[in-house]
């Protein structure tokens, strides 16, 4: 009896030795993920010029009353929402096309999506400058043929940025939606046709409702992807365009005087926007997947 118990004890002790294997992981996560984020939130309530004050809402007040910060938030939201909306529509059409065509062309399509899904940031901005910049190739061709809307298009503006953001949203969103289409069974379409429905009925009443949870989770990934994107906009416009990630970064590193506590508050605003989108997405997913549980 006593022997058995001591054996059980050593077994349990030896089990806890394996907690040591968790230590490196905890160290990494605490030092480089949790602690920095917590300190960022704490910092956001401080004031840059007065190091003695530890709790004040001055930064937040400043953000929501100063025009340049408000512009940054609005610009970010506009570009993010537009590129997300366009991205999801193209992804839907693209994923449906991939679902309808099951041949070699489909695998070419998939390969190109995969290849271009890592293509964003500085290289993307550069490629668009070659195409549509002031001496861009497409612009010169447009000059020769007098295509006015391309001649008047300004890449170094919000619409230029939106165009580039749409570019990097397409491969990501299409790749995320394609697996969802595999859940649509051909029998459903057959049933729809037997009942006299056309393809509009099918997608409106069956296809899209079934896909809705995947569409919403894709939307939240796209939103995060566009909201946090930094390099694409910075490579094109440097600090000359007001965007949330660019403003945040400029408060910490840069030629102008840095304001890390204000930057921390801006980061918190960005994280709150992200959290709202994630919570909204979870809520909608719960609502739209109710039928699955029935």
């Amino acid at each position, binding site marked *: 009896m006593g022997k058995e118990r001591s054996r059980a004890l050593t077994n349990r002790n030896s*089990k806890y030795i*394996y907690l*040591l*294997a*968790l230590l*490196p*992981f*905890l160290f*990494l*996560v605490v*030092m*480089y*993920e949790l602690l*920095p984020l917590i*300190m*960022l939130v704490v*910092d956001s309530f401080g004031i840059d010029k007065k190091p003695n004050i530890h709790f004040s809402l001055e930064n937040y007040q400043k953000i929501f009353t100063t025009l340049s910060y408000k512009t940054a938030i609005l610009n970010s939201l506009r570009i993010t929402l537009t590129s997300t909306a366009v991205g999801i529509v193209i992804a839907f059409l*693209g994923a449906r*096309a*991939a679902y*309808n*065509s099951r041949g070699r*062309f489909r695998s*070419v*399509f998939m390969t*190109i999506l995969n*290849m*271009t899904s*890592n*293509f964003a*940031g*500085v*290289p993307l901005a*550069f*490629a668009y*400058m*070659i*195409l549509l910049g002031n001496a861009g*190739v497409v612009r*010169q061709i447009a000059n*020769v043929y007098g295509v006015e809307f391309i001649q008047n298009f300004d890449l170094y503006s919000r619409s230029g940025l939106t165009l580039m953001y749409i*570019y990097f949203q*397409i491969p990501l969103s*299409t790749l995320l939606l394609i697996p969802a289409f595999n859940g649509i069974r051909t029998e459903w379409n057959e049933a729809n046709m037997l009942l006299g429905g056309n393809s509009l009925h099918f997608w409106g009443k069956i296809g899209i409702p079934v896909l809705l949870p995947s569409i919403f989770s894709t939307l939240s990934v796209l939103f*995060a992807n566009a909201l946090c994107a*930094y*390099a694409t906009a*910075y*490579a094109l416009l440097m600090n000359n365009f007001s965007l949330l*990630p660019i403003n945040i*970064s400029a408060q*910490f*590193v840069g030629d102008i005087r840095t304001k*890390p506590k204000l*930057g*921390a508050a801006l*980061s918190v605003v*960005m*994280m709150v926007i992200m959290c709202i989108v*994630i919570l909204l997405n979870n809520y909608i997913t719960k609502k739209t997947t109710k039928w699955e549980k029935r």
Partner: protein
Amino acid sequence: MKRTKIYANIVMTIVIVWLLIPLIATIIYSLFETWTGIVPQGFTLDAYKSIFTNGAFLTSMYQTLLVCVVPILITILVVLLALFAVTVYFPRLEKYVQILCMIPYTIQGVILSVSILSLYARGTSIFSGRMVMLFGAYCIIILPHIFNGIRNGMRAVNMNMLLEAAEMLGESKLKAFFKIIVPNILTGITVSSLLGVGLLFGDYVIIRNLSSSNVNNMQQFLYQSMKRSSTEASAVFVVIMLITFAITAVVLTLQSRSTLEKIRNERN
């Protein structure tokens, strides 16, 4: 039925063309002296010759490799140990480990880099080293991918049964884990670490914010050469693109091979 297929092919063609135009235009641009009319003129490889004889470019290539590979090796080791302890001895903790691994999905580069910078930059300890901060941030950024890859691999091989069998044969579980489980999930680990390489290779904001000015990756080199000469930058662009494509190609091949194996195993 046939009409939907034709329509599908048209949609896919349009998307492919849209995605490839910027790439192809830049490749052509890098191969010619001038492109001021409709047709580019004067085929030349000078841009490539100039970047491959440029010491700064070669240094940035080597530094990119370094800052990609080291964090991935660290993260793989750390996650392997953590998941070993959690799945074998503390299954209740798995949920929390997973949550910690998924947080980086939502914070992404800008916020992560500025938060690490503001916490450590002013100190004098080892944590304030630029390289240490950069590696820390990179480990966190790839954490979700490495975690998913390793955990999915572990689930596929029925780890607990294999480890118990090894223990009965007189091997310790930790040794058995590294001798039996890790080699079995190597494809999964490779795929997820290549996804991580792709991610870190494309990073610009984290390295810009955290590293000192003498450590530059290829993205930064591209950014600097954009300011100097667009022909030189276009050659850098093509090299970056080829490396990205090579990484993706290896990932796709490994993935399709492992699904083929899975199908074959299920049939047997």
